[in-house]
C-alpha cells in the first residue's frame, strides 16, 4: 500500500444520486479506502480541483447541455472514466422520455401538469437547455469501465477501486453483476 493515492472525481449528471448513496454504503470500508484514494472533486467533499484525476466515477446520463459540457470536461480531466449505474450506461429512467419530443415533455409538465397555476415553459437563460434525447455516456465520450446496477452495490465500487489501485483488470463477481 505504498503506492500514491488515486485521485478520484465523482459526479452525478442526469441521475438521482442513488449511486452516490451506494458509494457511501461502503461504510467502514471507506477507512480502508482512505489509504488508497483521495476524493478531489465530488459532491461528497468540498474540494473542486481541476487538476488531473486518475478515476472519474460518473453517475447519470446526459439530458441537457450542462451535462454534456461537464462530461467532456471530466473526460479531459480523468485518465479512467467509469460509467456508474444504469442511467450512465443506457440512459436509465430519464431515457423514458426518449419516446417523446422535447416539446411534448415540457408542455406535459409546465403547461398541462397537475396543479400548474401559471402555465409557461421556463425560458430563463440560466436554465440549461434539454438535449433532444437522453444519452448514455458512451455516446459522447469513450468510457473505460462500467458499473451496472441501479444502483451498483457498494461492494462493486469497492471491487472496482481496489482493482484499479492494485493495477488489476476490474471485474465483478456474479452477485455484484446486476442491472437493477
Amino acid at each position, binding site marked *: 500500500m505504498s503506492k500514491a493515492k488515486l485521485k478520484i472525481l465523482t459526479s452525478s449528471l442526469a441521475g438521482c444520486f442513488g449511486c452516490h448513496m451506494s458509494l457511501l454504503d461502503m461504510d467502514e470500508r471507506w477507512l480502508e479506502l482512505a489509504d488508497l484514494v483521495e476524493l478531489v472533486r465530488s459532491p461528497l467533499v468540498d474540494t473542486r480541483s481541476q487538476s488531473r484525476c486518475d478515476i472519474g466515477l460518473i453517475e447519470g446520463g446526459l439530458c441537457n447541455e450542462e451535462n454534456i459540457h461537464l462530461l467532456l470536461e471530466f473526460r479531459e480531466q480523468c485518465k479512467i472514466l467509469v460509467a456508474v449505474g444504469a442511467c450512465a450506461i443506457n440512459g436509465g429512467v430519464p431515457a423514458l422520455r426518449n419516446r417523446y419530443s422535447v416539446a411534448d415533455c415540457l408542455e406535459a409538465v409546465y403547461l398541462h401538469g397537475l396543479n400548474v397555476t401559471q402555465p409557461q415553459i421556463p425560458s430563463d437563460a440560466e436554465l440549461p437547455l434539454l438535449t433532444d434525447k437522453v444519452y448514455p455516456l458512451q455516446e459522447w465520450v469513450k468510457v473505460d469501465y462500467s458499473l451496472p446496477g441501479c444502483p451498483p452495490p457498494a461492494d462493486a465500487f469497492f471491487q472496482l477501486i481496489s482493482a484499479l489501485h492494485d493495477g488489476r483488470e476490474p471485474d465483478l463477481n*456474479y452477485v455484484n453483476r*446486476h442491472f437493477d
Partner: protein
Amino acid sequence: MNKQIIIDGEVVTYRPGQTLIQAARESGIYIPHLCYQPGYHAIGSCRVCMVKVNGRWASACTTLAAEGQVIDNRTLEVDAHRKQIVQMLFVEGNHYCPYCEKSGECDLQATAYELNMQEDHFQHLYPHRSLDTSHAEVWLDRDRCILCGLCVQASAEQDNKHLFTLGGRGTATQLLVNSSSGQLGETNISAADEAVAVCPVGALMKKQSIYSRRSGERTYDKTPISKLEFKA
C-alpha cells in the same frame, strides 16, 4: 447406437437427429440460448447459441450433431461473441431493468450476467414501441420483446389459440396480436397460457402478480442461469 462429439474437450454422446444443443443438454453442458427452449422447435433466430464447429460458426440449436465435430462452446472467443449478440438485443429494445417486473427472473438479463456483460456496448436505438394493457389478465410490453417467437409457437401449438404472429421486417419487426383491433383485450388469452409462461423476458406478463419476490431472493439473483438450467 450412440455416437460422439467433443464439446470444449469433453466427449458428448448423441443420438442421430439430435441438435448440438440437445446433445449438450443431455450431457449437462450449458450452451447459452434464448429463442430455443426444450420442447419447442428451434427456429435459430436469436443467434445466442452460436458455437464454433470445427472452426466454423454455427447455431447450436439448428445444427445436427455429427461424427467428427469438435465444438468450442464456453471459450473466451465464443462467449465474447455471444455477449455482443446479447448486447445487440439490449440496445435494440428498451430494457429498463431497474424497474422491470421481470428483473431477477428474466432470461435475457440472466444470460447477460452469465456472459459477464456489464455495459451495452453498442449505440441504443431507443425504438418507439407500443404497450398493450387492454386485457384483464395479461399485458404486452413490446419495449422488452426480443422477437424470439416462443409465444407464437406456444399459443399455436400448446394453447391452440394462434394469438401471435411476428410481422413487419427489419427493426420494425414486431409481435402482432391476432384480433381485428390488434389488441390483446379482444382475445381469449389467459394468464395460465403457455404463451405467457414461456416468454423469456418481461414482454408478456401476468397482471397482479408482479414484484412477488424480493430482490436477492429471485431466481437469478444468486445462481447463474447455467447452473439453474439443470436443476429439476
